[in-house]
C-alpha cells in the first residue's frame, strides 16, 4: 500500500488546521451555516437525522492495520464504538460532535487518514476493486494509478466547486469488480495491439433519479495521458454541467444531452491543447509514486498445503473456505473475504473491538493490510493458504466469518431512514429481515451468487438499480413502500434492473424476495445457472407472475 511522505503528511496537517479554524468561525457565528456547509462537506462532515456524520476516505479501499486500529480509536473516543463501511470504500461514523471533529481529524491525520473530498461538489474517493494488486486476472496494480489521480484531484484549485459530485473508478481486469460503469468517469486498464498499456475511458455513469451506464469515449488512452485527459473532462464538466437544477447537474446528464460522441469530441479538442503540457506523465513521476507502494515479501509456497487439506475435513471450515476464500496471483496464497453481513444484524458495520482484532489478524497473516469492498465487506488480501485454518478460527471468534459472501444475504444496503436525512424509508431492517429468511447456508448456497441491493431513497447509495434484486424505498401516505427491480448488474455487463410491479409495503418485502428466490429455483435450467442468467433468459414476466399472483 501507499506510504505517505512528508508532502502528503504536511498537506493533511494544513488541512486539519484549516478546518479547525473553520469550525471555530462557525461556532462563533462568524460563518453562517450556508457559508460553512460546503466547507464541512468538503471535509466529509454531514448533518444527518440525529447527529453529524463523518465520512473518511479509504483511498482505493486499502487500509493498513495501523490505520484500522486508529479507526477503532476514533470510534471509541468520538463515536459509539462502531463504524460503517460504504459502497464507495469509505467508512462512516454516525455520532460525531462538530466541536470534536478537528481533534478526530487530527487523530486520523496522524495515520494518513482524512475525510477530504468525501462529500461536496468535488472529485470524491477514487475507488477500485478490493482485490487490486493481488487478483490473478489483473494486468497491473490499478492502485498506483488511482493514487496518481487522487493526488492530482486533491484540493485542485480549478475543480473544487463543480456543478455536482464526481466519482472516479479504476480497474485493471476484464472482469469488473469495481462497478466501473456506474461512475462519472471510469478507467479500465488494458493492452493495445502493440502490447502497450493504456486505459479505456468511460464517462457519464451514475444512478439516482436518472440512472445511466457509462459510455466509452476513448478506447485507448496511453498511460502518459491519464492526468491531462481527466483534466479535459473535468474542465468541460466544470464549465458546461448544469448549475440550475441539482437533479440535472451530474456529468451523466451533460453526456446524455450532448451525446457521447459529441462529448468525446469536445474532450478531445480541449485535451489536444494540454496533452503535451505539464500534465503529461513521464515515467519518473509514475515510478516515484510506485516506489512508495509497499508490497509483501511473499514466501515461496505451494498451493493446497497439508494444513489446508487437513482442515477441509472439518465441515464448518470447508463451508467457509468454499465461500469466502479465492485464488491469489501468488502461489500458496489466498484472498479472504470477511463478511460484515452477520445474519439478522445491520449490514456493513464493524465494532471497534472487531477492528482491533482484524488489525491483529492482518498483522499476523496478511502483511498488515486490509481492503474494503464496495459490497461493504472487508478483505484480507494476502493470506498464506497454510494459515487459513487459524485465520478462520480468529475470524469466526469475532463474527466476521459468515459464509454468505455473494449470497442473497450478503446484502448491500444504504443507512436509510434510520440514519440519513435524505431517506424516505428504512433499508437496514429490511436487510436484516431478508437475511433472517435466508439464514440457512445450504439454502443461500443453493441460490448461488445473488446480489440484493437496498436504497432508502432515489439517491441510490445502495446501488439498487444494479442489484440482481434491487429494492428502493419510497414513501406513500406516510407509509414505507418498496419498489422491486430484478436483473440489474454492476460488472462488465452492467445493466439497470427492471421493475417487477407496484411497490409493496414494508412487511412484505422479505416475502417478495422469498417469492423471487423460489421462482428462480423453479425456472432455472440447471443448478449452476445464476439468478441473473435465468432472468436474462426468461425475462421479468415469470417472476412478476409469481410475486403478484397473491398480491
Amino acid at each position: 500500500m501507499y506510504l505517505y511522505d512528508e508532502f502528503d503528511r504536511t498537506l493533511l496537517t494544513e488541512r486539519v488546521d484549516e478546518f479547525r479554524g473553520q469550525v471555530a468561525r462557525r461556532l462563533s457565528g462568524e460563518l453562517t451555516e450556508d457559508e460553512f456547509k460546503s466547507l464541512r462537506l468538503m471535509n466529509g462532515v454531514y448533518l444527518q437525522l440525529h447527529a453529524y456524520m463523518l465520512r473518511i476516505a479509504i483511498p482505493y479501499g486499502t487500509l493498513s492495520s495501523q490505520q484500522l486500529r486508529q479507526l477503532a480509536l476514533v470510534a471509541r473516543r468520538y463515536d459509539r464504538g462502531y463504524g460503517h463501511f460504504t459502497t464507495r470504500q469509505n467508512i462512516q461514523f454516525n455520532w460525531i460532535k462538530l466541536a470534536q471533529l478537528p481533534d478526530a481529524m487530527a487523530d486520523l491525520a496522524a495515520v494518513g487518514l482524512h475525510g477530504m473530498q468525501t462529500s461536496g461538489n468535488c472529485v470524491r474517493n477514487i475507488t477500485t476493486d478490493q482485490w487490486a494488486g493481488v487478483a490473478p486476472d489483473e494486468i497491473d496494480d490499478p492502485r498506483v494509478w488511482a493514487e496518481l489521480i487522487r493526488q492530482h484531484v486533491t484540493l485542485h484549485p480549478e475543480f473544487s466547486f463543480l456543478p455536482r459530485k464526481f466519482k472516479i473508478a479504476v480497474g485493471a481486469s476484464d472482469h469488473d469488480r469495481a462497478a466501473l460503469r456506474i461512475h462519472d468517469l471510469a478507467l479500465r486498464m488494458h493492452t493495445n495491439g502493440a502490447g502497450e498499456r493504456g486505459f479505456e475511458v468511460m464517462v457519464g455513469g451514475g444512478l439516482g433519479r436518472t440512472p445511466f451506464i457509462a459510455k466509452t469515449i476513448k478506447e485507448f488512452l496511453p498511460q502518459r495521458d491519464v492526468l491531462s485527459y481527466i483534466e479535459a473532462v473535468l474542465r468541460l464538466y466544470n464549465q458546461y454541467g448544469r448549475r440550475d437544477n441539482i437533479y440535472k447537474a451530474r456529468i451523466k446528464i451533460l453526456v446524455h444531452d450532448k451525446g457521447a460522441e459529441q462529448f468525446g469530441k469536445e474532450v478531445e479538442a480541449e485535451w489536444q491543447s494540454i496533452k503535451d503540457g505539464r500534465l503529461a506523465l513521464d515515467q519518473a513521476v509514475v515510478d516515484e509514486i510506485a516506489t512508495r507502494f509497499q508490497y509483501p515479501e511473499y514466501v515461496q509456497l505451494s498451493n493446497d498445503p497439508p494444513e489446508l487439506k487437513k482442515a477441509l475435513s472439518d465441515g464448518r471450515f470447508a463451508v467457509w473456505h468454499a465461500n469466502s476464500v479465492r485464488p491469489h496471483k501468488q502461489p500458496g496464497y489466498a484472498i479472504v473475504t470477511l463478511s460484515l453481513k452477520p445474519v439478522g444484524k445491520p449490514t456493513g458495520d464493524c465494532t471497534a473491538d472487531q477492528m482491533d482484532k482484524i488489525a491483529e489478524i492482518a498483522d499476523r497473516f496478511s502483511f498488515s493490510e486490509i481492503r474494503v469492498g464496495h459490497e461493504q465487506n472487508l478483505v484480507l488480501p494476502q493470506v498464506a493458504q497454510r494459515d487459513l485454518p487459524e485465520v478462520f478460527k480468529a475470524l469466526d471468534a469475532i463474527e466476521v466469518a459468515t459464509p454468505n459472501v455473494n449470497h442473497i444475504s450478503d446484502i448491500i444496503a444504504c443507512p436509510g431512514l434510520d440514519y440519513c436525512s435524505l431517506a424516505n424509508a428504512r433499508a437496514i431492517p429490511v436487510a436484516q429481515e431478508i437475511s433472517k429468511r435466508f439464514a440457512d447456508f445450504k439454502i443461500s448456497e443453493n441460490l448461488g451468487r445473488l446480489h440484493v441491493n437496498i436504497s432508502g431513497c432515489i439517491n441510490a447509495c445502495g446501488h439498487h438499480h444494479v442489484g440482481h434484486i434491487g429494492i428502493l424505498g419510497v414513501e406513500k401516505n406516510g407509509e414505507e413502500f418498496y419498489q422491486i427491480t430484478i436483473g440489474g448488474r454492476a460488472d462488465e455487463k452492467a445493466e439497470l434492473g427492471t421493475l417487477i410491479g407496484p411497490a409493496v409495503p414494508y412487511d412484505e418485502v422479505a416475502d417478495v424476495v422469498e417469492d423471487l428466490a423460489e421462482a428462480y429455483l423453479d425456472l432455472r435450467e440447471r443448478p449452476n445457472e445464476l439468478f441473473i442468467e435465468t432472468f436474462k433468459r426468461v425475462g421479468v414476466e415469470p417472476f412478476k407472475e409469481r410475486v403478484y399472483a397473491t398480491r
Partner: protein
Amino acid sequence: MPLVRGGRIVADNFTRIEDGAPIPNEGAVLVPAARFLADANELLQRQAPVGVIWPNDKNVSELAPYLDKLALIALVFPVYKDGRAYSQARLLRERHNYRGELRATGQVLRDQFVFLLRAGFDAFDVVKEADALAFEETAKRYSVFFQPTGDGRMTVARSRLKLHGHPTPATTRVNA
C-alpha cells in the same frame, strides 16, 4: 466590499459603469461585457485603463483579440459554490497569456483565497472585511500543491524528483 490586491486592502481606481450610463473620458472604467464588445476597439483607444466584467457562462476566448490592451478582467462567482470562473481564470492566464489584473468578484469568501490565487486571480472583491484583513495569513495556509497551474508554485511531483532524483523502477519489493 473591500478590494484586496497584493495582499492588502486597497482603493479601487476603477469606476464600474452601469448599463446605459455614459463612459467618462478620463479615469479607469470597468464595463459590462455586452457594452464592451459593442465598442471594444474604440474603448481600448482610451488613454485611461479599461476593464471588462465577464459573466461566468461566456467563453473567454471571445476576449482574446483584446487581451493585450485590457487592464482588468473581472470574473464572477454568483455564489461561491459556482466554480466556473476558476476555469475561465486558468484559461485566460495559461492559454491566452493574459497579464492584466484578474479580479474575483461576487461571493468571494476567505476559504476560496488559496484556490483563487492558484487559478490566477490577483485581485479580490471580498465580501467580508474580516476576510479581507485576513488575506495575507490565509494565503499562506497551504504549502503543498499537487497541481501545476500558472501560479509558478512548485508542485509536489517536482519537489519529490528534486529530492530523490529519478527512482529505480517499481519492481522493488520492500519488507512488509
